[in-house]
């Protein structure tokens, strides 16, 4: 199991490197906040420990609830913020931009 997991670990590292090296500088901020959201996947760790009943006692459970809350902030916030940023990069339909320009004057 350990060896399989290590193999996955190494391969994932190379995949990450390959995928990310194609992202242009211009999109580096959304890239960073997007990957930032993805590491919020650690929320799974908290959920698993709670769901499988691995943790007993108030302190353990309280710590896990905080961990789940933290992880959720990371995931939800990260994806939303990235979405907001990327929406701005999307080219607007031409008429819309010109209409904006008219408004601006």
């Amino acid at each position: 199991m350990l060896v399989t997991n290590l193999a996955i670990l190494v391969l994932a590292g190379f995949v990450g490197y390959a995928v990310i090296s194609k992202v242009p500088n211009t999109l580096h901020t959304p890239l960073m906040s997007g990957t930032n959201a993805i590491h919020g996947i650690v929320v799974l760790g908290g959920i698993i420990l709670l769901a499988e009943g691995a943790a007993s006692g108030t302190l353990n459970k309280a710590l896990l609830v905080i961990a789940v809350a933290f992880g959720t902030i990371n995931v939800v916030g990260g994806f939303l913020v990235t979405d907001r940023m990327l929406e701005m990069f999307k080219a607007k339909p031409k008429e819309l931009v010109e209409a904006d320009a008219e408004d601006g004057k």
Partner: protein
Amino acid sequence: MSTTIASSFLTDHNFRSVLYIVAFSLFIYGLSGLTGPKTAVRGNRIAAVGMGVAVIATLLVDPLHDIGLIILGIAIGTAVGVPAARRVKMTQMPQMVALFNGVGGGAVALIAWVEFRTSGGFADVPTYVAIFSVFAAIIGSVSFWGSNIAFAKLQELIDGKPVTIGALQTPLNALLGLVAVACGVAIVAGQHDEWLMLLLLVSAAILGNLLVLPIGGADMPVVISLLNAFTGLSAAATGVALNNTALIVAGMIVGASGTLLTQQMATAMNRSITSVIAGGFGGTVEAAPGAAGIAGGTVRSTSAADVAIQMAYARQVVVVPGYGMAVSQAQHAVREMAKLLEAKGVEVKYAIHPVAGRMPGHMNVLLAEADVPYEQLKEMDDINGEFGRTDVSLVIGANDVTNPDARNKADSPIYGMPILNVDESASVIVLKRSMSSGYAGIDNPLFVNPKTSMLFGDAKGSVSEISEELKVL
């Protein structure tokens, strides 16, 4: 609770594993969409769907314990995360990312701590679980506290300038790191006392604080992407400890991308990652205020009306934005000015230095917010060849990334850093609040170049004035 929707098929271990594979495939597919602005929105949403799949998969256990607490945690996280993400201004994006990164690291450290507590100090788990958990605890804790300090600096809750404790810094950091690692080794070797784990978490926490405190504003892009990589790696380690492939793959991808970005940022500043971490860039080099460098010439200041005339009759204007544009929220005013220039037949382009601003790609986000067309945003290597046939370079709140000393002056602290060669254009206009030096604390001979004129004042105000003048031309 145990007899909810869960049928034996849904809670089958292999079914869950397949869902994890679906989840990480969606992450990879989604991220590969980020290579272009057209596919990026969809890519991000695909990755979010992957996250949903992964969360659902974890809930498919029978019996399902503590669902109430799980929902509570998710509810709290959503209640905090959604409004924060909705309200944050684009200029505040770096600190938002730092904060989100920090809580991720915090979650990693907490999970490792609970694992320690529930396994009798890793007594009843294989050694490798202990090793990866200890690693996750150290890195997660460093990342949590480091990110919080980065947030506080960027939000100006604490001084953004480097805070150092002098020569003690490096030995102290080394000592803290050593203490954390020693505790980890002891735990792995079979010590089950909880104070070892607490000492590990606390020393890693102090280390996280001390690592980021000395780092000045201009180095922030490097640090934020480094901390991002840290959290990713610690999540991957948690994945190995919990035998969860989704965590391993997702964490590693982030670790790899964060490392790659960090390297690119460091290269763009011609500094090694270690020297960035060593910190103190802004504080230590300004001992001699470079009187010789800049006293050789005089600064010529100009007026908005003159700038407007100069640009209106130009063929090509290149805008060089920096952190100053972000601070004064001038991006919309800049776009407005560019539209007026374009209406007069002037070609407008934007030259983006990789480390302009406080996070990688910071300027692009701000300009995109102001609806600047993506095609006009030029990366350094693409635009540097064009300054030779540019009539006016308009530098807005950027300093160090235009400093010709980086090319010419071997003893300059930024010597060797690739810069935007604005001094090759026919004339240069610098919008700046005052004659103070940039974050690196060094003089910029560009300001006394005979081609250069300075327009002092708040960037937004200055740009709006130029626009007013352009309208009456």
